[in-house]
């Protein structure tokens, strides 16, 4: 019954509203605007060609993001020097807050950091971290939806997020100290 051209309109309705999200996530994955554009276009064409596999009424955003991610992994060369995770295990989770709680408890130094520096710091995270951070803290996707799109357990989403946030905070803090937005942490006696 279904004609080949029939899904055309519903593809537009279901997929096109997610272009902004796909573009933002592609930007963070590739850390390169030109590659991000190509990645989004490739993703949309692949999605269109496999539109029949999409079950109407299910999560189109997650479905598209899975395609975006697979396309990125398979077809895009990762950066030559893919950033690695900082070793933050030894650091107490709230150490950063402890060092600023008297001078800048609300973390207002964050708002002094220019956009470009924030994005640069995100893009300097390891790929696995950038990905979950983009989906959760930039796109606002629930953990369950992220887990489904990335095919990883919710616990993994959470632990990656936790480490990504800590690493990002540490990098932004160092930048804020360097730029003079905040006084340096006092060295331990």
């Amino acid at each position: 019954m279904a004609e080949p051209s029939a899904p055309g309109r519903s593809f537009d309705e279901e997929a096109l509203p997610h272009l902004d999200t796909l573009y933002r996530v592609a930007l963070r994955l590739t850390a390169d605007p030109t590659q991000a554009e190509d990645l989004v276009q490739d993703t949309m064409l692949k999605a269109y060609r496999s539109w029949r596999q999409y079950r109407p009424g299910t999560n189109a955003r997650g479905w598209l993001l899975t395609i975006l991610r697979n396309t990125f992994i398979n077809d895009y060369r990762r950066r030559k020097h893919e950033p690695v995770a900082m070793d933050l295990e030894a650091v107490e989770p709230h150490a950063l807050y402890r060092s600023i709680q008297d001078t800048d408890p609300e973390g207002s130094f964050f708002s002094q950091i220019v956009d470009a520096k924030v994005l640069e710091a995100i893009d300097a995270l390891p790929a696995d971290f950038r990905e979950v951070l983009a989906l959760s803290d930039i796109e606002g996707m629930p953990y369950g939806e992220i887990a489904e799109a990335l095919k990883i357990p919710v616990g993994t989403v959470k632990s990656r997020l936790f480490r990504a946030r800590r690493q990002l905070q540490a990098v932004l803090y160092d930048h804020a100290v360097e730029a003079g937005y905040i006084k340096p942490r006092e060295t331990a006696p």
Partner: protein
Amino acid sequence: MSRLDCDQALAHLQDYLKRELTPELVTEVRVHLEHCRDCTGYARFEESFLSMLETRAGQTTCPKELRARILAALRAETTGS
């Protein structure tokens, strides 16, 4: 209802801020925050970090040219094959 101590409350804080907790746990964390200035301060700090991320990186939109290019490519798929 059991009272959470600071370590327990902080262990749930990220999930609390992301609205990923069960209603029962939300209440327990909220009760702890209401009674603990130290944890409230830390929660504010984490909140300002999260909202900073959203406002800085979440506003970018797909460029018009790219949108047009994609639409043209989709139309070519439809008519071309």
